[in-house]
């Protein structure tokens, strides 16, 4: 174990961990929203993310950009980023709604048992990722260098880059808006009502089907933003990009308390940090093993996650 390395690099590890964690947290919201309302783990959420990560690349491709392009001017970068975000958000949102419509709604109509949902979830996930795999010959796809990481400020040996700031700020802003929507708006109140007591929600006139579509959509929007950030950060994507990150995001959701929005944020950031500290402490090859051992330990102490379960109960 390399303690001196961890202490020496604590600053840089923390900032990379936070940026990584912000992406995981955005991704995790989709699991938590759907679980909060349906008590269902939407395993196909990783492919909602996956299609978002391709959507922005395709749009950037329209402008003749690929991984070998030069970085465009600042003004075009802003425009391209916005277009990429819109494309990813739209495609991820549509994918999420589509998964709900095709894989889950028919089962719900027939009152299927929870295991049936699990199977269709895995089935939908595999179907989408394999289709992407076939269409891309399982090759990686490079991301145009829209943002050349540059130090914005330096504290000791901690170099904070423009990309890291973008990721963290965008993630926090999106989550803040989502939180406002869920906690302040009428539709948000409808979502919380279904999460807390579906029968009572129906007695208040809440259309459960619409609430379900809405949470899938919201989770999809967040995954779309996460996907663009991921592309820019990692520089490549691939048909199975959603898989491991999906497991991490799901874990983050459980760690924070599944069904709890603020738990997803906390869980995501914590997982990002843990991974980076663990990589430094035990070596990069142990990154996932070590961070998951730590997670299990945390869950042993707090089985319902750090902030506790339930979308509704998490209040300001």
């Amino acid at each position, binding site marked *: 174990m390399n303690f001196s390395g961890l202490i020496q690099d604590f600053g840089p590890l923390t900032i990379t961990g936070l940026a990584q964690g912000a992406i995981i947290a955005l991704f995790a919201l989709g699991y938590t929203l759907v679980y909060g309302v349906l008590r269902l783990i939407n395993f196909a959420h990783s492919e909602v993310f996956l299609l978002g990560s391709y959507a922005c690349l395709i749009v950037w491709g329209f402008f003749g950009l690929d991984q070998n392009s030069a970085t465009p001017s600042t003004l075009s970068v802003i425009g391209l980023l916005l277009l990429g975000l819109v494309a990813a958000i739209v495609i991820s949102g549509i994918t999420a709604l589509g998964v709900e419509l095709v894989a889950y709604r028919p089962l719900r109509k027939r009152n299927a048992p929870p295991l049936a949902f699990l199977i269709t979830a895995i089935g939908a996930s595999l179907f989408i990722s394999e289709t992407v795999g076939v269409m891309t010959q399982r090759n990686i796809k490079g991301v145009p260098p829209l943002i050349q990481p540059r130090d914005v400020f330096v504290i000791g040996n901690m170099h904070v880059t423009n990309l890291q700031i973008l990721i963290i700020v965008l993630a926090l802003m999106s989550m803040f808006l989502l939180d406002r929507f869920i906690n302040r708006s009428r539709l948000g109140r409808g979502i919380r*009502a279904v999460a807390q*007591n579906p029968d*009572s929600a129906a007695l*208040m006139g809440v259309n459960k089907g619409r609430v379900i579509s809405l949470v899938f959509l919201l989770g999809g929007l967040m995954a779309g933003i996460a996907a663009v950030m991921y592309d820019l950060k990692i520089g490549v994507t691939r048909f199975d990009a959603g898989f491991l990150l999906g497991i991490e995001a799901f874990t983050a959701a459980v760690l924070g308390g599944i069904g709890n929005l603020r738990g997803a944020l906390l869980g995501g950031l914590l997982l990002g940090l843990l991974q980076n500290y663990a990589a430094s402490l035990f070596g990069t090859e142990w990154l996932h093993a070590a961070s998951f051992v730590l997670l299990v330990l945390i869950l042993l102490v707090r089985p319902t996650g750090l902030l506790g379960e339930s979308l509704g109960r998490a209040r300001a």
Partner: protein
Amino acid sequence: MLLELKDVTLMYGRIQALHGISLSVGQGEIVALIGANGAGKSTTMRAISGLRPVAQGTITFNGEDITKLRADLRVVRGVSQSPEGRGIFPGMSVRENLEMGAYTRRNRAEINEDLDRVFTLFPRLKEREKQVGGTMSGGEQQMLAVGRALMSRPKLLLLDEPSMGLAPMLIQQIFDIVVEINQQGTTVLLVEQNAQQALSRAHRAYVLETGEIVKSGTGAELLTDPSVKDAYLGVA
């Protein structure tokens, strides 16, 4: 008739809970539904509000066949239920719970009027406006459930055991409030274990036994009916 059930049967899986019941509630009435535990009173309420699909028979509300209408749309038509077990949203404040009752409505001024009205009927709710529903006492939750059901400005208010869990003094009060709500123009279908109170306040009543209506009449008639007295009014 505002509400009419004709030969309604309802199944929980293979268990038949309602064996073809027919009942009606007229505009402006308080109608009570009494019966022993497990008779099917709450089930009848669920059939009317649409929480459970009926197997056979028809439910007509305000001249419209609502047998197959989704529960949330029945609220828009004017049916509102305070359910058995209260069904408070535990993570929402008292105020938010009441706002949920007005979920289908948009006119802010009218909603505020109704909030005031509920706070006047239940001053306790006003005092606890910001408290989280799940931490309210059982009796307070009961008031909240009734208040919340009023917030949709229903034509028909379904109350499933509104006196449950209330102290004796409050039981009197809640029945007074039911009468007051009714006099303000809301039709009420009332399920009660507290048959004495329910029958003395209701215009008409039905007696339910194992999923069948076995008796009906005015509240006063049933209060003096020997078999009803024996079975539901206790020795006192």
